[in-house]
């Protein structure tokens, strides 16, 4: 059953910016990766799902509820990490989490402590004094602490170090196991490839491809098998190039960069202009 549905969504900002005729859906218990370069329309689409923007045409719904008209009902069961988190800087992390819990009228959050521990975050500092990574962690805790069934995550790992990125990916995997429906945007192929079942690629406001992560991976990875002179050379080669050794033969796999994948779908044109929409 489709939990998140976007149908023929259009929002034209002029100058080729915006989203044009975007459609996709995310099923119950599925993780959907929303992939695209900066300014491709990921955040604009997410803003429609969040009920921040009214669709110029087309429709967005979550759990059968219209994302614009019934946004408060949609929000009851939703966790959101904004692409650019802006907190109340006057509060400490602890005060902020307490405020959000009271504001959302959620009772005791047994998940709060678990999440703080998982991301090694000490929330007692003033948010103003926190680093970008700490703020991101705080945003993650705020989005997950009320244990929502649906998660909309806009570039959730930005600012996190690789260790924390891995912890986040583990968290997503666990959530998925618990049947949560996840929409996660990213501009990094590796990130969505590791977490998502299906991937939608958006470019210049248009959905270029929606496919299973496995088949995208297959299509966009290239393998080379080389034969080396000795087993020891093969062993060393396999370690250096992260390959699979079989006797004297070593198979190495390369992933295409996001840009190359786009080139596949779009041909000629180079990287999109920067600038968030």
């Amino acid at each position, binding site marked *: 059953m489709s939990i998140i549905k976007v149908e023929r969504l259009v929002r034209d900002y002029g100058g080729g910016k915006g989203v044009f005729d975007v459609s996709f859906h995310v099923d119950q218990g599925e993780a959907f990766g929303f992939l695209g370069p900066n300014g491709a329309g990921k955040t604009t689409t997410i803003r429609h799902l969040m009920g921040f923007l009214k669709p110029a045409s087309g429709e967005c719904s979550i759990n059968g509820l219209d994302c614009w008209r019934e946004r408060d009902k949609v929000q009851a069961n939703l966790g959101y990490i904004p692409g650019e988190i802006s907190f109340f800087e006057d509060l400490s992390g602890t005060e902020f989490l307490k405020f959000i819990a*009271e504001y959302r009228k959620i009772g005791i959050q047994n998940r709060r402590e678990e999440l703080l521990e998982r991301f090694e975050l000490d929330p007692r500092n003033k948010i103003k004094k926190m680093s970008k990574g700490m703020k991101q962690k705080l945003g993650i805790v705020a989005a997950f602490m009320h244990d929502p069934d649906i998660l909309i995550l806009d570039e959730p790992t930005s600012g996190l170090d690789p260790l924390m990125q891995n912890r986040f990916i583990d968290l997503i995997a666990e959530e998925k196991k618990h049947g949560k429906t996840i929409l996660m945007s990213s501009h990094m192929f590796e990130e969505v490839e590791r977490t998502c079942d299906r991937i939608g690629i958006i470019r210049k406001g248009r959905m270029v491809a929606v496919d299973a992560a496995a088949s995208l991976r297959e299509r966009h990875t290239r393998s080379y098998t080389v034969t080396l002179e000795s087993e020891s050379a093969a062993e060393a080669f396999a370690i250096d190039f992260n390959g699979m050794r079989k006797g004297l033969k070593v198979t190495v796999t390369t992933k295409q960069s996001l840009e190359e994948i786009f080139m596949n779908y779009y041909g000629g044109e180079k990287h999109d202009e920067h600038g968030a929409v």
Partner: protein
Amino acid sequence: MTNMALYKREMKGSIKLLVIFSAVITLYVSIIIGMYDPELMKTLDGFVEAMPELMASVGMKADAATLLGFMVSYLYGFILLIFPMLFCILRGNALIAKYVDKGSMALLTAAPVKRRTIAFTQMKVLVSGILLLILYSTILEFICAESGFPGELDITSLIMLNGGLLCLHLFIGSICFLSSCLFSDTKYSIGFGAGIPILMYVLQMLANVGGDAETAKYFTFFTLFHPDGIIAGESQAAVSSLILLAGAIILYALGIIIFDRKDLHL
């Protein structure tokens, strides 16, 4: 309709400004009421005679007979207009537009709380602040007058007068609030929210000078607050205050509706 967690947070955010403005009002009100003294009155009247335009522009006129008339002349033309107005401008902008501009409105809208509830709560915070300031001024005026000149103050008239003042500031607050709801950029929200009341006040100052400039009074809502008329018990003055109140209710409602329907680029 009200989210208590948000209301509490924002009232805390109002405290600092309320304390500062209350302190300034305390200073002026106590000094000016203390100056109600026939001897000093002569000095002030002397000023009015020496530079009638300047004194009139801030609402100060000669020959204020009663204590309340004296207060109207020296408090209700400047001090009690400007400071609550500044409160409206600063808080009005901060309650909605600043959050939208900075992006932290996303924290409030990404929750099972209706936008109408968010806007209504913020409106209540602004109105509560105005109420507290006017209430405090009333009590302060009462205490200063009773301690300095027992029995001289007509309390019913004072309450009527400050009722009118409250209507005026609720209206000013509604302009700031509407502007805050309408614009997603603090540049414009402050521009209109502060610009309109200040422009209107300048027109009022012009109108007070008299002469040809008096026609300016038809272009400013400050004319609808008519302190002399209120203490004289004129029904027209009461109607004017009610017009301000009705205008305020309309603008607050409009602000809430606009915020409910607008696109938020958070």
